[in-house]
């Protein structure tokens, strides 16, 4: 059974289409990413899948339950970590978790066990008795992820899990999300506008722009669609003969020679490097240095939308403001 099945999902706010007829499925145990600039419709999608917003049209099931009809069953099956903190700052970390587990109807003994378990998982045991308003951003995030797990959800939604966190905390949370997915078998859907995050974490990722999916595949294959990697070779010796020999290799798509550095475009560059070095040796050319550059998801985004994600965000913030005014929301 698919963990998530979305068909033609749409959400409009006063005539503004935030999510524009998207369809996709997420298999059980997958770590699925929604990548896109702010305002692309990622959070709206998550809000519909987690029953906080009703879809305008289309349908979606989560863990086999319809998000419009079986809202309580959906809610029982999911955990959500929202983009903005959803903690009560006037309660301690433990009290926040207690509130949560009681809302999910977990019995007293089990409750204590699970709370201790998740607190140690996110290394917050020492801070359990501290008011959450005294927590740092990273600690709040970790507490929220812990909270999303206490009721053992089948599907976990993470909306921008590392937004605004420092590099070290981000790394920490990434490792943690990975562990959850691999060892815990939890299906995870995460939204992000950090390319490296989607790249590092996600099995498959959808690139979302203006409420639509413009691409959906594994990060590796998305990058492969760009035609491949750039391998740069710093050469010494008779480069012309070497270039000539390379001309007969059909896996080289493009080549450029510039100040002793030869730049070649090819697929799976890392697998071709040994071959290149061997060819060079045969031609009596010395390779001083090899450099491989993989296209990033940023390049992929650029390829599919004609813009970089930064440009897109600058562009969208204007549009968002208009939409928020129309909708009366922040």
């Amino acid at each position: 059974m698919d963990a998530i099945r979305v068909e033609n999902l749409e959400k409009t706010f006063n005539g503004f289409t935030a999510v524009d007829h998207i369809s996709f499925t997420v298999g059980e145990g997958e770590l699925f990413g929604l990548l896109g600039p702010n305002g692309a419709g990622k959070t709206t999608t998550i809000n519909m899948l987690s029953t906080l917003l009703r879809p305008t049209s289309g349908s979606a099931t989560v863990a086999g339950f319809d998000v419009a009809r079986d809202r309580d069953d959906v809610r029982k099956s999911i955990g959500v970590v929202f983009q903005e903190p959803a903690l009560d700052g006037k309660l301690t970390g433990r009290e926040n978790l207690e509130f949560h587990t009681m809302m999910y109807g977990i019995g007293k003994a089990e409750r204590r066990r699970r709370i201790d378990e998740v607190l140690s998982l996110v290394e917050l045991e020492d801070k359990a008795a501290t008011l959450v308003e005294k927590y740092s951003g990273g600690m709040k995030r970790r507490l929220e992820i812990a909270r999303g797990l206490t009721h053992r959800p089948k599907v976990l939604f993470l909306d921008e899990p590392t937004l605004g966190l420092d590099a070290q905390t981000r790394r920490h949370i990434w490792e943690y999300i990975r562990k959850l997915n691999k060892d815990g078998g939890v299906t995870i859907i995460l939204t992000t506008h950090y390319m490296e995050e989607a790249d590092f974490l996600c099995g498959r990722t959808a690139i979302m722009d203006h409420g639509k999916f413009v691409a959906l595949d594994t990060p590796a294959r998305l990058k492969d669609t760009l035609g491949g990697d750039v391998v740069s070779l710093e050469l010494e010796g008779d480069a012309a003969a070497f270039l000539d020999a390379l001309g007969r290799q059909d896996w080289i798509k493009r080549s450029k020679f510039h100040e002793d550095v030869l730049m070649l475009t090819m697929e799976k560059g890392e697998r071709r490097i040994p071959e290149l070095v061997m060819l060079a040796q045969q031609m009596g050319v010395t390779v001083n240095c090899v450099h491989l550059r993989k296209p990033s998801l940023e390049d992929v985004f650029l390829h599919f939308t004609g813009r970089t994600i930064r440009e897109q965000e600058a562009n969208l913030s204007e549009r968002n403001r208009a939409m928020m005014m129309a909708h009366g929301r922040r």
Partner: protein
Amino acid sequence: MTIHWTAVYVLWRRDMTRYVRAKSRIIGSLAMPVFFLAFLGLGFRRMAVPGMDGGTGYIGFLAPGIIGMTLLFSSSMQGMSVLWDKEFGFLKEIMVAPVSRVSLVLGRIAGGTTTSMLQGILIFGASLALGFRLPGAGALLFGFVFMLLIAFTFIGLGLIFASRMKDMQGFGIIMNFIIFPFFFLSGALTPLENFPWVIRALSYADPLTYGVDGLRAALIGTSSLPVLVDLAVMIGFAMIMLFLGAYFFEKSEGV
């Protein structure tokens, strides 16, 4: 329609924890009613209130009014505290939980009623310190009934506003143009009999009028309307407001 009692309890407990921890807020919210009691009570000490039986004095007239006022402000704020939860994001945590929306409303009402009653009781204590005298202990119990009904009514009203609003922006307008008029129209400070008929007509549309009048009947034994009328009207208002509050809250979306 199922009620998840654990959820109701944990929502109530959260309100209690927050109430106990917010000591400065408790003091802040009690300051105004205490000042009203102290300064108006002392300043108008020798004033006779028309329609009141002798012996109670202005403090006797005033104290039930100020208790009613405390409940009005505290309960409508409690009902609107949904907006704070929205502001701080916690509402999403509540809305995404697998419990019936009715349980959420009941939890909110339970917590809001308890804190409002505590506030009302503290003001009752303050008025005793300022010279207010009860006819008997039974009067207090009867007074609690009216205090509860006032709390229910205005928590319901607060829930209605909170469910219709996206953020805190309209809060000041609601306080100044709805809650304060409820207070002044209710006759909490001044006898209704002195108002011109237009204003008096408005007063009779104000739930707090019956709440304060009922409190007077209970606590000092005199009222301008028959106490059973006060009781019946308040029960009606409380039920309607709670129903509407629950209805709008249930219909509102979580984000």
